[in-house]
């Protein structure tokens, strides 16, 4: 495990090219290996320097600016004509097209929260709720929301899958002895077989590193990373809601 890590691997790590397991192993090693941490830090700062250097590339000042005003007028005229033609001839076509486009863009909302989904229509039967804060009202909201969704699905006779994913301070919801809602959560799990509680291992590792002992409620499962879990689920067609 103490083998020297090659520059190539380190570059791949910084560029996010390693797979989840490799990059987690490296992240874990970074905590103890100071020279390695310095190398990564140097790479990152080099990267941000390059980014800074080209954030605002100079604009070329060719002879084009001289022609621009006239060209702009012509362009506007042409644009005006096009609008007129489009309005006169294609009114109906345009109308149906426009309403189509608007329907595609509208963001789905689930129970008053903004939902994200990779497909056009958010899937109401596979939903993940993401909690990243320990604020009592946010925890409360997450549980209320989960229960509302599950009850609704039950009433309508749908088989719904719901995951509550917690990372950062949100993980307190799932810690044994810390969670203020342990009893309610156990009840919920008993009633709904398709309800899952997922905690982020990276967060657990961080808390542990800071000297806190993290024990999860028995109903909870740990995923390698919360973000990884969310991305995988999104790709599988789930709907994401941040509480």
């Amino acid at each position, binding site marked *: 495990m103490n083998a020297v890590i090659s520059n190539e691997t380190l570059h791949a790590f910084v560029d996010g090219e390693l797979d989840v397991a490799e990059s987690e192993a490296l992240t874990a090693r970074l905590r103890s290996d100071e020279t390695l941490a310095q190398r990564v830090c140097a790479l990152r700062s*080099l990267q941000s320097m390059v980014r800074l250097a080209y954030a605002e590339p100079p604009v070329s000042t060719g002879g084009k600016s001289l022609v621009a005003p006239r060209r702009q007028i012509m362009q506007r005229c042409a644009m005006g004509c096009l609008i007129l033609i489009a309005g006169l001839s294609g009114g109906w076509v345009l109308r149906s097209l426009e309403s189509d486009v608007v329907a595609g863009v509208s963001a789905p909302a689930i129970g008053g929260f903004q939902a994200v989904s990779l497909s056009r229509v958010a899937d109401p039967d596979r939903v993940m709720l993401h909690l990243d804060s320990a604020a009592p009202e946010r925890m409360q909201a997450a549980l209320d929301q989960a229960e509302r969704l599950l009850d609704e699905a039950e009433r309508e006779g749908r088989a719904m899958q719901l995951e509550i994913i917690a990372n950062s301070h949100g993980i307190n919801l799932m810690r044994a002895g810390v969670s203020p809602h342990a009893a309610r959560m156990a009840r919920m799990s008993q009633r709904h077989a398709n309800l899952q509680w997922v905690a982020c291992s990276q967060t657990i590792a961080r808390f542990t590193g800071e000297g806190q002992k993290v024990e999860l409620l028995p109903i909870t499962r740990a995923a390698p990373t919360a973000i990884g879990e969310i991305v995988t689920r999104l790709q599988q067609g789930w709907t994401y809601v941040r509480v």
Partner: protein
Amino acid sequence: MSMISKILFGPIRTGMEANRPVLYRIAYAWCHDAALADDLVQEALAKAWARRAQLRDEASLKAWMVSIMNHCWLDHLRGRREFDDVDALQDEIESGADTPEVCCNREQVIACVRAAVARLPLGQRQVLTLVDLEEFGYAEVAGILDIPVGTVMSRLSRARASLKITLDNAAKQHAAQPALRRVK
């Protein structure tokens, strides 16, 4: 406006136009010449529009356009230098830029990094800018430049190593010869 051009030219035209700043940044990082970068972008956009039927996957529009621009840039190099072995050129040519000198404030850092990037061999410069500026994956860069992924990794590694050395040296130089301090 965008609605109308979407109806007239289809969504792909809008997508191409939206990539203009991205292309310009990359082009500038490759050649460090604003006018030439502008020309390259214009040429790449025109070619992309003409060949739009060849684009198989709209999600890869950006990578596809950058790869077209890469061809424009190589064509330009072939035209300018009177030999056509661009492959050999990729590892050798360094631009005639001055060595970066003192870096202290923001503008100087920018100028300094640009000078250091400009001194990298062409192939390394391209890989570095694609990965660092636009966060293309290694596989995407390999596709864009039409080289193996292993080459992408080794070029990137060498590019970053020499960039670091150049910048470190510049910083040391600065430390060794303190410039005149302005006294208010």
